[in-house]
């Protein structure tokens, strides 16, 4: 039996239940006596709640209970916290206004969908019908939705204690004087004003929660569509409800996609948990898609001015950026970290830029919270860099490939050669940036690349080709580092490897799969390391009672951090197993080698199997003196550094000269995500990321009008990529192992989403330039109308449609 599972495209063990309709998502779960919740939500972006009349609703058949913000406030519940603290430049603590579960009377709602009451009834329909009868006296107030406008004099104030709507200001990089001087001395400066538009993550499963208080055991159970059950338990118990953690079990069953939006602790989780004790019955809440658009944390929403300075030879000398980041009305769980430590720290990109400075204003507005959405900060940084360098190539009439290569950081493996220290706090682990660029260009053909770049038009279509390179920091994250940067939690991961007496293995991981296929990938790691069959391994996750602790899945961290924790526990199992084996084989543990599921005395055919050692550990009749019985180890793995995947993406587009419609014809991606356990699953991660990145470039944007109404909050109005918007992807990988984790893996979840967006926009700009339309930029998404308008104005002013 071969047990070389690492590197094999093993079919997913979890698939069968999903393809036969047996998946178990939170909304599929029905508990005895269950009730259903429906919320009364604000139709205004900003309004004072003068009074709430629930009397008519209370009389409706099936209504069990109604709670308002006043009930929550009188229970002493303040609201949900944020998990990351960033200080103002002057050292003051960021503004952190309360985020109540329900807004009480006399207070103000701060975005559409902000809830003021919850109706709990015997059925979903009864709860909804009753919610329609709640009378609220709203006093509408002026609203502000743009981060830039929110900082202007006289703008409506979202929170009274955050003057100028500023949550915090922040900077990173070299001293500003040095950067200013380098810009002034540059032979050429490329300047762009960017809008990195607001996106809706849109996991296809809407959020769903069931709170259940059991009087007999005095315990709460929360079923939640989350990416990190333990994190939810910690935040909810310690910071929201003040209930003891050991009395709460949080379960994350099958979860239908997350992309960041299901990391955060949402008010409804705490509300159904708390209310289930008040009514002594389970409560389910499943959001509608309309609610999901209004309530699930959005992504991106940056406005930036960026300047890149070059010397006469095309070497980058300086980068200066001012960014306004819209954080929405309340600080979501990771929100302060996204425009700062996940964005500012990535502005080195793949380039040797000697002087870099980012100044950031993080701003409150009357919109739903903005937090980490796939890529989170890193797509925004990559977009700035890759649009700037591509535009610089056009302005300076240089080859965009050559311009990148001459500025690339030289290759380093992080073992023989040290890691690369950036100007913005990070130390890259290992990289071979020329390799991915050369291979991607080779896949298209350099001559083809140049021909396509210069080709003006064919059959009424403009042809364009664009590329981008990227680096990301993931495998999040070393606890001491992020602690110094403001994280209020560690970012390690836990794993328990429990060998059963028969040699079967149960693995408990704090990572959480919501599509990533951990059950397969982790089992491959364990089977390979232990030399046993995958069928003999069970991966358990998503249950805070079963798994010791966990920080969950986001930031492309599951394998790099969670997988490393599993490897640590396997090492402990094998170390103890060797002692038992040595005793049974009457030799020294040093004389043993472990392979293919057995310990063998070196140079002999004397061996003992893993299963026999496991049995001996639990039936310790012939057993080393002083050694504890059992074979069951837990580990916590705290990474030494972030991991740094990188890659190069190339897009080929066709632009219709008459309509401005962009058709993506080819997409090439060469990504280096370190070692790969299951290539099939990694391919899938890349594909999905590409689609979301391409979606940002061409289709997606959450649009609030000036009153704060979300004007496209449905799948009919918000354009996500559908099957006929995308081509088959042409993807390859380069492998530069991560030098600081035991699997050599870097993470693949976000890569596709980070590199693809600027490649597509660069391709469209290239198409327009080759057709004689020298536009510097088109605001994303590149809709037909925006591209058509850009073609009508062939001067070089920035198009901000």
């Amino acid at each position, binding site marked *: 039996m071969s047990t070389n599972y690492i590197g094999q*495209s093993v*079919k*997913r063990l*979890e*698939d*069968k239940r*999903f*393809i*036969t*309709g*047996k*998946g*178990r*998502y939170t*909304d*599929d779960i*029905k508990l005895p006596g269950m009730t259903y919740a429906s919320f009364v939500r604000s139709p205004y972006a900003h309004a004072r709640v003068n009074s709430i009349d629930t009397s008519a609703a209370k009389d409706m058949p099936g209504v069990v209970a109604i709670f308002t913000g006043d009930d929550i406030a009188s229970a002493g519940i303040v609201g949900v916290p944020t998990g990351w603290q960033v200080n103002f430049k002057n050292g003051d603590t960021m503004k952190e206004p309360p985020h109540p579960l329900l807004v009480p009377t006399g207070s103000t709602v701060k975005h559409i969908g902000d809830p003021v009451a919850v109706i709990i009834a015997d059925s*979903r*329909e009864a709860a909804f019908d009753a919610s329609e009868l709640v009378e609220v006296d709203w006093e509408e107030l002026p609203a502000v939705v743009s981060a830039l406008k929110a900082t202007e004099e006289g703008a409506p104030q979202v929170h009274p204690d955050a003057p100028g709507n500023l949550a915090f200001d922040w900077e990173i990089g070299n001293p500003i004087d040095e950067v200013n001087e380098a810009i002034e001395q540059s032979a050429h400066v490329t300047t762009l004003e960017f809008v990195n538009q607001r996106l809706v993550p*849109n*996991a*296809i*499963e*809407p959020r769903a929660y069931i709170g259940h208080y059991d009087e007999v055991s005095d315990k709460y159970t929360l079923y939640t569509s989350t990416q990190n059950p333990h994190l939810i338990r910690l935040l909810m118990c310690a910071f929201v409800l003040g209930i003891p953690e050991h009395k709460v079990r949080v379960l994350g069953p*099958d979860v*239908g*996609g997350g*992309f960041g939006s299901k990391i955060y602790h949402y008010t409804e989780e705490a509300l159904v948990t708390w209310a289930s004790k008040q009514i002594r019955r389970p409560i389910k809440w*499943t959001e*509608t*898609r*309309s609610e999901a658009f209004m309530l699930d944390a959005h992504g991106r929403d940056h406005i930036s001015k960026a300047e890149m300075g070059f010397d006469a030879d095309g070497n980058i000398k300086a980068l200066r950026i001012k960014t306004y980041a819209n954080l929405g009305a309340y600080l979501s769980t990771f929100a302060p970290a996204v425009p700062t430590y996940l964005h500012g720290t990535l502005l080195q990109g793949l380039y040797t830029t000697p002087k870099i400075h980012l100044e950031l204003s993080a701003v409150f507005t009357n919109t739903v919270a903005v937090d980490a959405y796939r890529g989170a900060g890193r797509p925004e940084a990559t977009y700035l860099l890759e649009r700037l360098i591509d535009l610089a190539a056009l302005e300076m009439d240089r080859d965009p490939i050559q311009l990148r290569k001459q500025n690339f950081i030289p290759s380093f493996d992080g073992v023989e050669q040290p890691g690369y220290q950036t100007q913005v706090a990070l130390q890259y682990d290992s990289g071979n940036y020329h390799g991915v660029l050369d291979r991607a260009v080779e896949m298209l053909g350099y001559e083809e690349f140049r021909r396509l770049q210069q080709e003006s038009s064919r059959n009424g279509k403009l042809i364009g080709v664009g590329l981008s390179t990227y680096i990301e920091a993931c495998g999040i994250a070393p606890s001491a580092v992020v602690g110094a940067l403001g994280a209020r939690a560690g970012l390690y991961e836990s794993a328990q490897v429990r060998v059963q007496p028969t040699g079967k293995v149960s693995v408990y991981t704090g990572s959480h799969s*919501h*599509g*990533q296929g951990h059950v397969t990938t982790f089992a491959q790691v364990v089977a390979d390391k232990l030399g046993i069959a995958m069928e003999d391994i069970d991966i358990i996750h998503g249950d805070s009672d079963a798994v010791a602790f966990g920080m969950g899945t986001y930031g492309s961290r599951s394998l790099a951090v969670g997988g490393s924790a599993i490897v640590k526990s396997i090492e402990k199992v094998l170390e103890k197993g060797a002692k038992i084996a040595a005793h049974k084989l009457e030799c020294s543990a040093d004389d043993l080698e472990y392979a293919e599921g057995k310990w063998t005395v070196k140079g002999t055919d004397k061996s003992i199997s893993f299963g026999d050692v496991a049995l001996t550990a639990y039936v310790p009749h012939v057993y080393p003196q002083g050694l504890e019985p059992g074979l069951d180890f837990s580990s916590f793995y705290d990474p030494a550094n972030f991991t740094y995947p990188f890659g190069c993406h190339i897009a*080929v587009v*066709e632009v219709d000269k008459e309509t401005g419609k962009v058709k993506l*014809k*080819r997409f090439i991606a060469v990504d280096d995500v370190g070692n790969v356990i299951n290539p*099939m*699953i990694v*391919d*899938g991660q890349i*594909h*999905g*990321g590409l*689609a*979301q990145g391409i979606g940002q470039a061409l289709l997606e944007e959450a649009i609030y009008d000036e009153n704060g109404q979300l004007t496209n909050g*449905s*799948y009919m109005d918000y354009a*996500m990529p*559908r*099957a*006929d918007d*995308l*081509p*088959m*992807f*042409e993807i390859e990988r380069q492998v530069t192992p991560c030098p600081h984790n035991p699997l050599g893996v870097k993470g693949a979840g976000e890569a*596709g989403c980070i590199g693809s967006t600027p490649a597509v926009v660069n391709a469209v700009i290239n198409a327009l330039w080759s057709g004689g339309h020298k536009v510097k930029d088109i605001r994303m998404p590149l809709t037909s109308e925006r591209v058509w308008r850009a073609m009508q104005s062939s001067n070089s002013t920035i198009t901000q449609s």
Partner: protein
Amino acid sequence: MTKISVTVNGTAQTHEVEPRQLLVYYLREKLGLTGTHIGCDTSSCGACTVHMDGMAVKSCSILAVQADGCEITTIEGLAKGDQLHPVQEGFKECHGLQCGFCTPGMIMSATDLLQNNPDPTEEDIRHALEGNICRCTGYHNIVRSIQWAAEKMKTSARALDGAPVSTSPVYASVNLNQQQQV
């Protein structure tokens, strides 16, 4: 309340339902067939796709009372015992699913396509999936899954005719990338 009689996955069902109840809620809540999912409220995502009298329909845009007298097949009724439908097999073989939430609807739409067009082009497949949204896969492997299933169904049909049967392609060797050249 209105009385309806429907045959769901081969079993006759008779129930009193509210006239406003959507078919998808009837299937999920009354019959416990939770494999049919609800992903939106505008009939856009296709997660609730089932077959009604052999045709793919979105069960969120049909009232339960409209299904009176009809035959419904849901994802739970697609396999014949332990024998998966080729489209189900294709999704597993080609990694056509990640989180699994859109998957039942995708599979029900794809089976409908292959019933009507046993030999679809890549363009045909992408067009047929316009009413189903997947946020995980970028559709690449969904297209390949359906191509795999089409191939398998043709091979099975040939086998029934006594023609030689080719072996099933697997992920590592299958190369159905039809790259469009500009």
